[in-house]
């Protein structure tokens, strides 16, 4: 079955690829890895400050949400600018988002709480910002686990697509997690929420036009 879906999930090493796309793919891949290099530099130059554990936590959290927003910008980029390449590589972008989320959570479990699972469980059930963060993590884990081509075949494109619509919820929960976490200064989290609203707005307008056209 040759659905238009295949284009979005074809890997860069696929036979039908042009060379320029492959270069683009690697460029974006390397660009999304830059935060890791930056963090390594900060760690070795003492740039993480007096409370490095908190700094690492914030760093991964920030980049998890940013990368997720970049992944969610692929379709709006196609709608507004007619670009196709972001949609084609959004699986890779989404997996980077998952990687940063996983690092964010690992830092919390391993370094911040040091495997104190009773404390972690209390956090999850009692602190609503951690509750929504964990829900977002579970969603993104499911999406990452079904991100390979075979999963689409096994699940069927329709069910797969329905499942992967949850990414919007993960984005919204990520923003909520951020807003509920800060003490008083909600400026940065609201900027992220604003970007998410903009990206979803573009889709909504596009969908509305298609439906009423």
């Amino acid at each position, binding site marked *: 079955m040759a659905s238009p879906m295949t284009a979005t999930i074809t890997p860069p090493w696929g036979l039908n690829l042009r060379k320029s796309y492959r270069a683009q793919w690697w460029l974006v891949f390397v660009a999304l890895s830059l935060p890791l290099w930056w963090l390594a530099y900060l760690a070795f130059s003492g740039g993480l*400050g*007096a*409370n490095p*554990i*908190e700094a690492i936590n914030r760093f991964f959290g920030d980049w998890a949400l940013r990368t997720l927003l970049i992944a969610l910008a692929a379709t709006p980029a196609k709608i507004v600018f007619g670009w196709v390449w972001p949609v084609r590589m959004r699986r890779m972008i989404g997996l980077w988002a998952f990687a940063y989320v996983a690092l964010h959570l690992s830092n919390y479990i391993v*370094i911040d*709480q*040091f495997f104190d699972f009773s*404390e972690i469980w*209390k*956090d999850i059930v*009692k*602190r*609503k*910002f951690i509750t929504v963060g964990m829900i977002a993590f579970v969603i993104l884990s499911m999406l990452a686990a079904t991100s390979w081509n075979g999963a689409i075949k096994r699940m069927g494109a329709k069910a797969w697509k329905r499942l992967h619509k949850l990414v919007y919820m993960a984005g919204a929960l990520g923003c909520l997690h951020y807003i*509920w*976490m800060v*003490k*008083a*200064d909600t*400026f940065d989290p609201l900027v992220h929420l604003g970007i998410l609203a903009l990206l979803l707005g573009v889709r909504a307008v596009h969908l509305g036009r298609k439906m009423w056209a």
Partner: protein
Amino acid sequence: MLIKIPKSWMLRESDATPQTLYRDRRKFLKTSATVVAGGIAGSFIGPEAFAAWVRGEKLPNVMKSGYTVDEELTPFEDVTGYNNFYEFGTGKTDPADAANDFKTDPWTIEVAGEVAKPGKYSVEDLIRSSQLEERIYRHRCVETWSMVVPWVGVPLASIIKRLEPTSKAKYVAFETLYNPKRMPGQKRSVLQWPYVEGLRMDEAMNPLTLMATGVYGEVMPPQNGAPIRLITPWKYGFKGIKSIVRITFTEKQPPTSWNIAASNEYGFYANVNPTVDHPRWSQAKERRIGDFFKRPTLMFNGYEEDVASLYAGMDLARNF
């Protein structure tokens, strides 16, 4: 009305190098070729002594006090580089960056309310340099990090006694400078400005309560709340209001900034209490800056002996 300053300390002050001279020397070092000057001076007096010399003005005649804890001091760089002082930005390193040029001289503190000697005072009027003592206190932030800090100051009680509050004075209210030009963080209404705090009179008179003008034996750096700030080591750090310009004695409990911002999260008392969680995080443990593992938080931050009696019979979960 100004309080006449006793003569004894004036003599001492004249013995020391005048502040303006100190300032000029620092300015010269900073603006001229610091590297060259540092190299030459460093080779004479040794790099460590040189670093201490350019770092800040040493406060003279600081007495050691019995108020100390047998715990490792948090390094000077962390105490003065990792701060919550929203008047200079909400990031932890914002205050150290943005408060660098903050002028704290001249500085006037207005004393008002239920008090026999209201009026405008200078820092030197309130804190006599001959009385300065160093106290090593634990410092516990409501965000679950902590430090051990050698503050320099005088007990607030000694100041209050001289101001002679009336019998109606049940609380002491404090106010931070409001000046968005000098405190750029105030351009955004993250909190309601100016920052206000308050203590019950018996809390204010407790021997632990300190009005600090220095840290690490030096003049308080701006990012730590220069020229004068409050220290209440058994309470969360946000009670320690910085850069104070007004002290008012009141009959009624005064409003406090974080309580105004989120009354369900921050109470008037804000006593360190491992059994009463912040609604969004546990207060049972804390991470001492520089440590890897968290440590259990102590009741009243380890000052139970000194302050528990203040709250006898009170429900601390309700009066958080």
